[in-house]
Each structure stands twice: as structure tokens, then as C-alpha cells.
């Protein structure tokens, strides 16, 4: 692993987008920031700005309007970038699957690298998902 890859693995900056979640997943993501889980020890930072981000965390399923926003955000991220879909809704639509106004899951809108299942997934799972995404990024 060269120095660049090592740095990439150790410094994932995260952009979190809620495409239409029930907020359950979002609260779990925020829980990661708390002292109990402290994602900053892995160098992860919640940057809230696509231009700085490496990892896009998407929660909730897309509808037509949020899909456009998600696409825009993804476009504004510099390469290399990875997308982690968090929660059943983001994976497939979850409990909103049959709704008339949702697109089932986010992978129809942006290419998803890691799927983290759960409703809502535990913070540990989310962190592991990000780690796996980084490994994937470095293998590319």
C-alpha cells in the first residue's frame, strides 16, 4: 500500500445525504460522531460539502426530486469517490417500497459501492461499511 492509498484509507471525509429516510438511519449516523463511537479516530469527518467529500452516505430511498439532488451532489464530488447506501430504504425502498412516488433504492440514481442493511443499521455496521468502501476505492 503506497502512501497515497494509506492516506485515503485513513482520511475518509463523509457527505451525508438523506434522500427520504424516516430519520432512523440519520440518527444512527450522527451517533457515530458521538464520543461513544467517535468515528474521528479513523480520521472520518462529516464535511457536509460534496466538494470536500470522499464518501457519500445515503440514507432513505429516493423519490424523483431527491434523486436529482443526489445526482447533483454526486457530480460535484471529486474523484476518487465511493457511495455507501445505509439502511433498508436506501437499499431497496424498504418500507416505502410500494409507494407510488419512490424509486426503489438509490442505486438506480448513483452507483452504490457498499450496501449496509438494517432498519436502522447499527453504528458499527455503518462504520464497517465505510471501511469496506475505502478498501474498494483503493483496489480500483
Amino acid at each position, binding site marked *: 500500500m503506497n502512501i497515497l492509498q494509506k492516506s485515503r484509507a485513513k482520511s475518509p471525509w463523509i457527505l451525508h445525504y438523506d434522500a427520504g429516510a424516516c430519520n432512523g438511519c440519520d440518527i444512527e449516523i450522527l451517533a457515530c460522531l458521538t464520543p461513544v463511537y467517535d468515528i474521528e479516530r479513523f480520521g472520518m469527518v462529516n464535511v457536509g*460539502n*460534496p*466538494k470536500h467529500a470522499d464518501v457519500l452516505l445515503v440514507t432513505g430511498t429516493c423519490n424523483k426530486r431527491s434523486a*436529482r*439532488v*443526489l445526482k*447533483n*451532489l454526486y*457530480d*460535484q464530488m471529486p474523484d476518487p469517490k465511493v457511495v455507501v447506501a445505509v439502511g433498508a430504504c436506501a437499499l431497496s425502498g424498504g418500507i416505502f417500497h410500494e409507494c407510488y412516488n419512490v424509486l426503489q433504492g438509490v442505486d438506480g440514481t448513483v452507483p452504490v459501492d457498499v450496501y449496509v442493511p438494517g432498519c436502522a443499521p447499527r453504528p458499527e455496521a455503518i462504520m464497517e461499511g465505510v471501511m469496506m468502501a475505502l478498501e474498494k476505492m483503493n483496489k480500483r
Partner: protein
Amino acid sequence: MSNLIYYVPLSIILVALILAPLVFAFVISIVRSDYLRSLIIIMIAAVLAISSLILFARVTITHQIIHYAPGLIDWNLLVTIADFGLMAMFIRMGVRRKSALILVFAVIQTIILAWVEFGPKHTEMAYPPIFIDWLSIVMTLIVSIVGSVVAIYSLPYMREHERHQNLTISKQPQFFRTLLLFLGAMNGMVLSGNLLWIYFFWEITTLCSFCLISHDETEESLRNATRALWMNMVGGVGFITGIALIQFNKLPMDASRLLELVRTGNEAHIIALLILPMACLCFAGFTKAAQMPFQSWLLGAMVAPTPVSALLHSSTMVKAGVYLIIRFAPIFRHTALSEMVAIVGAFSFITGAMLAIGQSNAKKVLAYSTISNLGLIIACAGLNTPLALAAAVMLIIFHAVSKGLLFMATGVVDQSIHSKDIEDMQGLWARMPLTSLIMVIGILSMLLPPFGVLIAKLAAIESSIQNPLVMVMLVIGSTLTVVFWTKWMGRMLATNPQADGRKRENLPALYAGTLAFLACGAVILSLFIKPILENLVLPAVANYYNVAGMEMTPTVLSAPWLMIFLVIALSVLAPTFFNHLRSSQIKPAYLCGEQISSRAATAQFLTVADGTAEMTVRSYYFEKVTDESFHVKWVTIVATLLIVILFGAVYLWK
């Protein structure tokens, strides 16, 4: 080469610098053809520039101050007659504009003038009326070069200006007549040593500025011109009172003789006699340099066509005010007057900068910045050390170039976007790349290293350390200066990404030429600040205080400016030329993902019900804190008090 310069007789140079513009002013007022007018203006500009350079070369080579008596006719008599003629004109204007103020001041001036001319005369002139030292040379160079550039720039500007006015008869002949008269009068003023001559030319500039400000003859411009006239006539009263007092005290009415008296004798009683007249002259200088509380005439002057502002603010008019103060500065060194002059100047410096922050009209920002910078120059004159004077002279030079440039560029922008509002200049960088680049250079040269204005400002701060109050005001004032300039540049640079690349801009040749000339001038003069200091500024100062070179070289100059220049130039040029963004790398601004598309050139975003909205941004103006009408009130009161204290201190000082 040096011989060649010496062979040009002095009389011819003087005729070219003073008489030629005056004479051609009358020629041009009857010329109706655009083509001929342009020819005359460009020719005169060339003549002025070349003769001022010859004069400069001559004084540099011979290293001698020039006293010169013009021959042929009795010029003194002519000046006297013309003086009364001027007074008659002022009175006529007062009647025509129905302004009691103008009338009163004109009558007072006439009476005092009559006493000076026909009252008891005590002293013979020790020297002939023409007196040229390095300070005069600096001023002539500025008037003749920067002033001429403004005159050339006016050619296309006035043509365009009149196109929108639907005039039946063009008023350009009058405009250019006044312009040339102005330049001639300025040259005359800085090249004469006889106080009465200086006063005569001084009053001509007052008259010319009235004509130029009222040029458009709208209600507003007439009102503002009237105000400018009476305010400057207050200064005129101060000036002639000073002269009368000098005569009353049986002192020579000759700048160079007065300076000599103080320099050689340094006799306390002479200074004691001179200090009140000097206070009067400084007061005159304050009015002309639009120091608080006289700032309103200069602000009102912005209704005139932009070349007028460029002329008034950079090379003429206001510089006449600071010139007068600097001219006599050594006389009142180490007196209460000197301290008070420094405080009045520093006060204008800080309040001018403060008021500029709240303005969004470009010309108003420039006007306040002029007031502020002139305050700095006057503060330097009041600090009255060799170093401070060197700073003052440097500021005069660099400020003239940069301010002229900024006004001219604002004029070009105004004619293109039909607005002087800085908010409307948003994104100008993409629409008018050349003009906005020149404007940014102009602003940077007013503000930051490695440009001359800043270097002079640092020297000013260094010399202000002996006077703590002034020092604190200068430090705070320079910080405030940064705020409004940066905001302005920020507005111009604020572009939409992908605003279909940068367009090419088609500037008329005379615009592009004059703007580029001054922009290059600002950069090149700063690059060669050391030779300028050594050959132009230091001799002017050394001549004043009898000091050797070291004492007045600001230590800031010992910094490795060349290295600084190189590093900055490199860091600008490298990404400009070797690091081009590809269009696929250009991304729109972050709008929370709601921008219309990642390729859109406008900053539009989607709102409720799939409607679109334009994202707008504007500058902070801190309206609550910088409310102009409130601040102007207390500033005027404090400044008036300061001037009262100045005279009080002079009266008590023995």
C-alpha cells in the same frame, strides 16, 4: 544627450508647460471638428509630457534649483489684472447662481486682494517669480503626464457621453477648454514661487473645477458645483488672508525666500510671525484637498462626467491642496500647527475610510478613498520629518496614478453597463475581462505590497511613531481601507462558473491605450520605487531640511522588494498560464444539490413546485453601523472643532 537637454531654453519649456495649455484652451473652444480637437489634445498632451520630462532631466543633471524671471512683458502686472478679472467672474457667478455665500466670499477676497496689491508694500521680491525645485518637478510630472492621459481619455468618453444627451450643440469645446486651462493653471501653480502667483493659479483651478462640475448643467450638477465653488472660496479667503498677514508682518512674499529664511536662520521670531499666515494657508489646503469638514464638495463633484473626477482626484485640484501644505511644511516644523495639521489629516484618513465602507456607488467609494488618502498625505506633512515628507511625496505620485486609473476604468464600465453601482459590477471579470483586470490591478496598487502606495504608507506609519495619537489613527485607518477595497474586488470577481468562458472585450483604442498606460505605470513605478525615491523624492526632501540621504530613506525600502516582487509575480503567472482548467473540471457552485443541473451557467436552483429561482448574492455594507448621514454629522462637527482648535493652538503658541 545631456547637452541637448540643456540647449532647450528654459523659457520654451515654461511656455510649453504653462502658456501653451492656456493658449490652446482658447483655440480649442472655437474648434468644432472632432478630428481637429483630438489632434490638438493629443499634441498638447505630448508637448506637456515631453517638456515636463525635459525639465526633470535638466534639474536632475544640473542639480540646481531654478529661479527664473520671465521677460518680454510685466507679468506681475498681468497677474494682478487677471486676478481682479477672476474676482469679477466669481462675483458674476455668485449673482447668476443667486448664491449669497459665493458673493460674500468673493467680495471679501477682492477687498483683501486690493489691500495686498495697493496697500503698503514693505519688501522687494528677493527672487523672480518662477521657482522650480524637486517638489515642483514631481508635481509637474504628475500634472503633465497623468493629467494629459486623462485628457486623451476624455476624447472618446465625451463623445460617448454626449451621444446620450441629444444636445443640439456639442459642449465639448467648452469642456476641453476648461480641461486645458486646468492643466496650465496647475503647472503654473507648482512652478511659481511668488505667493501672489500661486494664489492666482489657485483661484483659476477653483474656477475650472466649478465649470467642470457644472458641465452637464443639470439641476444637481449646478447645485453641487455651487457648493464646490463656495467651499473653495472659503479656502481662497484663507489663502489671501495668509498672504495679507505675511505682507502685514513685513515678510517676503516668496516661497523660496521664506523657506530659505527658516532653513538658514531658523530664527524663532520669524517663525512666530509666520505661523498664523501658515495656518491660513494650511486651511486653504484643507478646503482644496477636501479634508473633513469640507469633504462634501468633492463628493458632490462626482455628478460630473467621469474624466472630470479622474482629473480632480488624481493629478489636479486636490493635489493642489496637499502641495500647498507640503510646500510650506518645513516652516512650521516643531510647532503646534504641525501637530494639529497631522491630527486633522489623520482624522480625515480614518473617517474617510470608515465612510467608504458603507457605500455601494463606485465613484463615492473612490471619492471617500481620495479624501482618506489625502488625509494621509496631510498627516505626513504635519508629522514634518524628512521621512514623513518623503512618504508624502511618494504617496502623491502613486496615488495620482492609481486613482486616475480607477476613475477612468469606472468610467469605461459605467458606459458599458450604465451603472456606477458596485453591486452591478458583479461578475464583471467574465463580462469585461480587460477592464476588470485593470481595475483589480488599480485596487491592488492602492492597497497591497509590492505596490508604491503601500510602501509609502508603511513609511508614513514608521514616521508617525513619534506622534502616538496619529500613529493609532493611521493603523486603524489602514485596516478600514482594506475592507472596502476587498469588498469591491470581490464583487467584480464573483462570477458564475461556466459562464461560457471569458469573453473577449472590445475596448476603443484610446480607452485601452490610456488604461493600459496607467496600469503599466502603476506596476512599473512600484517596481522602480528605489530609483524614483533616490532621484525624485529624496532630493525634494533633502532640499527642504538640509539632511543627508540616510535619515529619510524609509527602512521598509531595505526589505528585499525584488524578491517579493518576483515571488508574487511567479505565483500569479504560474497558475495563469501553466495550469489550465479543462471544462470537464469546472463544477458549479455548491447550492445544496438544488442547482438546476451540474452544467448550468446561471446560479439557478429549483424551489417549490419545480419553480426556478435565481440565486443572488451581494456585499455586506453594514448599513446599521455605517449609516452615512449619521456619521457625516458627527464627523463634520468634530472636524470643525479640530480646525478651531488648530487656530486656537496657533494663536496661543508663542
